């Protein structure tokens, strides 16, 4: 069961990524070109998925929106993972006040919702893309930090690390050969949930109109723009909704059965 759903997840994710990467190559119109005569029209050769309320190609907008979401989400989660694992190893290694101070910072940030961080970063940083990256990373590193610290603490006092130290191996070797095998397995789940959370956050803020600003295609923003015309063009509204749902479902399947 878990192996199968895991494979379905990877297949869905790769399909979405493939679409986002390849679609712009087959597209001549671009995501911004309007032709108001074709507003909400059905598919034709230039726009295989039809047109939105301003006559822009949904095929192109969907691909660019997915590119944006995937890029920001992967960048934010990767940053969070590197920072979190680094600080987690540091806390487990040095212990003492470093461990306690980092733990307190983590517990403090834990009380603040990710969307709040993104919104505050949005005022501080110049672009919304940077704000999403920084805000999401600022919240997600905690998960990686806690996982790493917990996994490493048990190993740090064990005989393997002691033996390696006595033999004169450096911190880099100990991290690669002893600590990494402990952290690696739980990392996939945390990464998948992290990317899913980031994509949901970007879409949610786009949906309430404080996300990525208007002409740039973004999933949540596309949904809210198309919502008023959902009776005339239900298929148009369904596209960003379906793309978002499939993306999140695939990541949740990859993360594994445990909710």
């Amino acid at each position, binding site marked *: 069961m878990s192996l199968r759903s895991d494979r379905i997840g990877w297949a869905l994710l790769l399909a979405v990524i493939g679409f986002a990467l390849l679609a712009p190559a087959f597209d001549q119109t671009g995501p911004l070109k309007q032709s108001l005569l074709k507003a909400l029209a059905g598919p034709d050769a230039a726009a295989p998925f039809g047109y939105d309320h301003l006559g822009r190609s949904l095929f192109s907008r969907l691909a660019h929106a997915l590119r944006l979401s995937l890029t920001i989400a992967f960048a934010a989660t990767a940053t969070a993972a590197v920072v979190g694992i680094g600080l987690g190893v540091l806390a487990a290694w040095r212990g003492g006040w470093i461990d306690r101070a980092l733990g*307190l*910072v983590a*517990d*403090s*940030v*834990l*009380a*603040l*919702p*990710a*969307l*709040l*961080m993104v*919104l*505050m*970063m*949005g*005022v*501080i*940083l110049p672009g919304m893309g940077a704000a999403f990256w920084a805000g999401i990373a600022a919240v997600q590193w905690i998960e990686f930090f806690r996982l790493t610290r917990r996994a490493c603490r048990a190993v740090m006092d064990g005989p393997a690390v002691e033996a390696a130290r006595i033999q004169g191996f450096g911190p880099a070797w100990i991290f690669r050969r002893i600590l990494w095998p402990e952290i690696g397995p739980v990392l996939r789940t945390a990464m998948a949930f992290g990317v*899913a959370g980031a994509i*949901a956050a970007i*879409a*949610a803020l786009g*949906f*309430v109109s*404080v996300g990525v600003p208007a002409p740039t295609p973004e999933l*949540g923003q596309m*949904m809210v723009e198309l*919502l008023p015309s*959902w009776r005339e063009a239900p298929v148009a509204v369904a596209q960003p*909704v379906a793309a*978002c*749902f499939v993306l*999140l*479902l695939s*990541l*949740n*399947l990859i993360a594994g*059965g*445990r*909710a």
Partner: protein
Amino acid sequence: MRGLTGILAFRLAQAAGVALVVGVMSFLMIQAMPGDAAYRIAAARYGYDMVSSQAADAVRAELNLDAGALAQFGGWIADLLRFDLGRSVVSGEPVAHEIAHQLGATLHLSVVALLIALLIGPPLGVLAGLRAGGLLDRVLLVAAAGLRAMPQFLLGLVLIVALAVEAGLLPSAGHGRAAHVVLPALTLALGLAAGSARIARDLMAGIAASQHYAFARMKGLSDGQVLRHHGLRNIAAPLLTYLGLQFVFLAEGVVVVETIFGWPGIGHALIHAVFHRDVPMVQGTALVMGLGFVVLNALIDLAAGRIDPRGVTA
């Protein structure tokens, strides 16, 4: 295991950490704003028609705005520690006053959402956990996975279209009548219910397979008695702790759901404050959300300690 004072000391330190993080972020927001702060504050105080270089200089001298970023930061944090949140740049009302007003609406929504979630989630989870691998268990697994992949705003959208627009059963947005709370609360509740059902199911399955559970059955207790005396109490404490950690998602959901449904609470206020770059309001709402999480979790720590005095933490 930490005692009562240990738990409270930890939560106090966490609250101080939250205030510091929010304070630093808000200060950075002020610094990132374009324009001269002295003119801005003078405009907020005396009205835009009355601003002159003289008034701005007076503000600059009074508030020591030339003292450099570090001294200003000290003043900002000192205000925060005195719970002086300042005035909203937009409405001119004290931030504390505005928030006290909005908090009522948010609490109303959150309590209704939490009650719905508790009525749906844990009971289903317990039933599924008692017959692990059964039909209900498998259906619940799929339903919970689907709900997890559904962000709250999408769920809200589906509920609006299905229940308000198509079926015409409930008002889609607004505030005032009792029926207005149903859709936003349901949107918040379904996500929470899915998570708590999964946790309750795993905990219950573990307990139901344990030796003490089998022993209680063997000595002749009925199914209901075993569940009441040996099952529920064992899962209550870790389930509560889990719910406490979920409050951060509730707060996040509140931001989105209140904005979608036009519910005049803290989350709605936060989005508007960000839109208008009203930093004192952003700081105030952020602080209330962060500290609310800490206070609720402190209460849950105490309640979990009452339920399970052995001090098991999830």
